[in-house]
């Protein structure tokens, strides 16, 4: 079980192909990039867990505003520290791949935007989301007044049952009307 040394067994490869949306090339490339992150003695151990800091050195994730959230969502570690095994890494690439369905992508997008992991997007989550996307410098950040107005607009438009939060179905409803989502929610190695 798990990956050993530098070769992926044929059975394992076909299992990965069946249960993820990746093709054989993508899986092999992912394996190569993942093993580059391991230290020399880690390379022989099966089921290695790579800490989040090392994952975030990958160029595809390095400048992404949601990089920590992505690692935390896809991590299956018990201590919730964002470390990924190879299979978690494949999960990540599969959800962000070209052939993943809209439902999978919107499900994971919802979990990534849900900063406090409570299953809904409330005002705090939305505020953190906007801050993530608008930059860190003083002049690009929104003032509290602007933030309040913006969140009010967002909830107005997407909160259908008017409970002050956006749950998964409402989020998926908004996504389904956004044609750019599928092509922009993509990370390719």
């Amino acid at each position, binding site marked *: 079980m798990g990956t050993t040394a530098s070769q992926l067994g044929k059975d394992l490869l*076909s299992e990965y192909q069946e249960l993820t949306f990746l093709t054989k090339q993508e899986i092999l490339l992912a394996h190569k990039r993942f093993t580059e992150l391991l230290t020399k003695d880690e390379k022989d151990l099966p089921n290695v867990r790579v800490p989040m800091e090392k994952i975030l050195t990958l160029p595809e994730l390095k*400048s992404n505003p*949601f990089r920590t959230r992505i690692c935390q969502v896809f991590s299956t570690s018990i201590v919730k520290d964002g470390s990924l095994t190879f299979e978690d890494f494949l999960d990540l690439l599969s959800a962000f791949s070209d052939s993943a369905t809209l439902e999978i992508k919107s499900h994971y997008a919802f979990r990534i935007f849900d900063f406090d992991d409570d299953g809904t997007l409330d005002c705090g989550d939305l505020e953190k989301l906007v801050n993530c996307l608008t930059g860190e410098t003083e002049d*690009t950040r929104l003032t509290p007044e*602007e933030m309040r107005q913006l969140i009010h*607009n967002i909830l107005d438009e997407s909160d259908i*049952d008017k409970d002050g939060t956006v749950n998964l179905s409402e989020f998926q409803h908004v996504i389904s009307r956004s044609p750019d989502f599928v092509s*922009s929610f993509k*990370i390719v190695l």
Partner: protein
Amino acid sequence: STRERIKAIRDLPMSFQEKKHIRLFRTNITGEFVYKIIIHLRTLVVLKSTPRDYMPWVSYSVSLQFLRRCGYSIRSIRQTLELWQGIMKEIGGKFGTSVLTYFLFLKWLLMFNIFSFLVNFGFITIPLLVYDISPNIPPNVGFGGLEILTGAVSGYFNYTAMYYGGYSNETLVDLVEYNMQLAYFFTIAIYMVLCGIALITSMANSFKTNYMLADQVSNSAWQLLCSWDFNIINERAVRQRKNNLSVQLKVNFVQYKPFQFENILFDHIGIHLGSWLLSTGMAVGCAHQQPFLCPLSLQNTTDASNWSLLQEAETLLVPFVVSSMNLVVPLFYSLFNKFEQYSSQRRQIYTLLLRNVLLKMFILGVLCYYWMKVVPQKFSCWESMVGQALYRLVIFDFFFLMLGSFFGEFLSNMIGTKFLPRLGVPEFDVARNVLELIYAQTLVWIGIYFSPLLPAIQIVKLFVLFFIKKVSLTHNCQPPRRTGRAAQMQTIFIALLFFPFFVGALSIVAYTAWRLTPSQQCGPFRGLNNTFSVVGIWIDGMEDNPGSKGAIWIYDNVIKSEIAYFLGTLIILIIIYIFWQVSQGRKHLIGRLRQLIANEGKDKSFLLEKLQNLQKSCRHKKQKQKNRNKVHFYRTIC
């Protein structure tokens, strides 16, 4: 089936370990795990309805596994054959998805041309070459200097397989009987039909996934936030995107803009009207010049075989003028655009696109009119002449595209950084570049009938253009300031490609085949009244064959009769009307369901409030009861 089961498992948004567990149906499932399955009830239904495999290694029959492995290997092979994947990723990483659509569109057009070249070469040119390797060139013709540019009016090319005139009209008898006339006609016809079908299906797919809704839905804040482009890897590009997004959010959704009705109406209508008049005037003026230029180059002789060098150079005048107009006039349109104020950026892009499309359509329309009406009367082998004119247009368009890249991007960059820093580094104008690609492809589509190997030139042109544009982009341009709308622009481009450009090209070719008399001395259709009569002759020839009664009946009653087309159109219109009504009904249903959900929410909050009030009053009552008991107790003691 196992395949459906595996697909259902793959679609579950769970981690890999959990999916493996479901697949092998282990018995040590935890409670949380079952809960996760239950919330994906739909998948559970699929899993339930497919046969349960307790011993998976037995149930996977060899053939099914083999088929599935084949499917995966086909997908892998397709991926390795994908052209330019590394470059696409680099461009997408730095400039985002909207600029990437230009390069994807270019690749798509390249595939069209490769297919067309293979088909034409295989079915038309190879039989000719096999049968008659040396083309029958008259003895006094050589390979001169301007040949490549002019398409060799009097020279070598005219008699080769490059143009219509080089093809024979005989039935070639070598190993098998090969009817050149039918082959030529059917190859071109079937290629155009396949192109049309490919365009229609991709347009329909595009509409389905990226349907263009009204402004208020696609312009909302949520859309901007959800469409963060994860493709962008370059750190500077990410920072720039964040800044742009922040500006967009602040301008569009946070600040309150007081709406001044009268000013907008009166100031801007004048400017809009003026720009439209000017642009239409320029387009018509350009198009109007063509008839004066064309005869200028053909005045002296109608026999094309011995033209002097000067006359050959004169033939280059028309493509030069046309291409330079195509380069210069859109720049004027962009200039007008800067003076006008638009309520939304989308309207700005649409207006610019519309003006450019009108300009190109006018020019092409006049050229085609000239080719259809005047050239057949003047020349003996007129199809080759038209083919050569198109060849010259394609070549000059190529040169001017490179020149346009120089002006549009390199010079703008120089001006923007060194001389007028206010303008800044230019952005890559996707709309203008895509329109140029569409125009180039239309020329090839018109020219396929007259010059079957024109797609080969287009393949080379597109290949070189890809690399030129990529270099120009990376050195001269900055990422676009406004995010989003890549999907909608893609839909518009495909729709533009199909209608009016493809339909226009198809109607030109159809008109040529139907109405115009083929030239008497050259080409595969010499001696016939019109091209389409080839099919008639073939059907007549088939009457001796007893088994083809069905084909003859179909030809007589369906293809030749007008009633069949009328009935077919009527049926299609009825089906469209039914689908439209169904979609209207669904829209109403969606509105009503939204209202239902909103009401449920109100009910929920009402009930919660009532519950809270009830709890409060209960506590209050209990408190009162306690107080009363205490007082009673003290009273009894004292």
